């Protein structure tokens, strides 16, 4: 970044009176000598004048008495409970809080879920049960059975054709056992 670019960033602070005396003197001397920075200063001052005009012109004075009466009316009127909750929620759930809160909540949930893997004896997830299921694959007697045994972490899958299905089809009358 050139000297001009560095100083140009300070012109706003200089015009706002936010620089130290020595910094102000340095910026002032540079702006007086540099045409481009002098133009940047002129543009900033012009913008500030326009801003003052727009923001202050719009703000016509308001009468105090009606303003105060309305504030008083709000103070004296009882609000519904949901308005109080809504007000509290709007103040509590600010953008930074939500931005931090959502990842923290996700991490906490994952931590609780994974505790069961590291400390199974604590049974955080209520303990994992052994699992077994039998499903018909094609509606013609062929089925799959699944057994998950949690303690030894063993999964056994049977693919077999049951006898009922065989009788229904009546192809060869032989009995088939489970296929591993």
């Amino acid at each position, binding site marked *: 970044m050139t000297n001009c670019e560095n100083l140009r*960033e300070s012109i*706003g*602070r200089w015009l*706002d*009176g*936010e620089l130290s005396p020595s910094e102000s003197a340095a910026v002032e001397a540079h702006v007086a000598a540099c045409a481009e920075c002098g133009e940047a200063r002129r*543009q*900033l001052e*012009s*913008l*500030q004048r*326009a*801003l*003052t*005009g*727009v*923001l*202050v*012109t*719009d*703000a016509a*004075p*308001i009468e*105090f008495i009606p*303003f*105060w009466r*309305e*504030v008083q009316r*709000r*103070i004296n009127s009882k609000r519904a409970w949901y308005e109080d909750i809504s*007000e509290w929620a*709007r*103040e509590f759930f600010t953008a930074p809080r939500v931005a931090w809160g959502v990842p923290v909540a996700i991490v906490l949930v994952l931590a609780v879920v994974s505790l069961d893997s590291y400390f199974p004896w604590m049974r955080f997830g209520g303990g994992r049960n052994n699992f077994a299921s039998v499903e018909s694959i094609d509606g013609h007697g062929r089925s799959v059975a699944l057994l998950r045994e949690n303690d030894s972490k063993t999964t056994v899958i049977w693919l077999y054709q049951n006898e009922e299905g065989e009788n229904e089809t009546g192809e060869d009358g032989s009995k088939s056992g489970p296929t591993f």
Partner: protein
Amino acid sequence: MELSDRELVQKCQAGEMHAFEDLVSRYHQKVYMVILGMLRNREDALEVAQETFFRAFRKINSFQGDSSFYTWIYRIAVNMSIDAQRRQKRNPLEFRESMDSVMEAQNETAKDPFAEVHDKELRARLIKAINDLTPEHKAVIVLRTIEGRSYKDIGEILGCSEGTVMSRLHYARKKLQDKLSAFL
């Protein structure tokens, strides 16, 4: 003898309604101006300003005096304005009303017809450019322009550092300058 803000707050906390009325009369215009600067609509600004003082009254007992009353009330006002602005669906009618009022005011003061046209165009574009700023950028521009607050004060009101205020002001002005480069 006029009481200080701190004394009036203490009286409010003791239950004296007149003390709160004095505080409202002291700050209602400035608070309204800041809110109007952010919302650009008179009715919305009046509504938010009244709600600001209502909430201040409800929370006055929790005000510890760590900061000045004006910092505290402005913080409520700015937060409510940012909240209102996020919920506000921009209504073209409201925008037109806002621009018309500015132009009417300008008609009373401008003498040179060329300068008048230039100023009208500049103001119309400036209002649009301000409306396009983020609520955070708008807040620093409004507090600096209307109130002339120091970066430190603005930081206290917005709950951020002086460095953040400086950075936001720099980028907000840059955005405005980019959009108005032909008119400045």
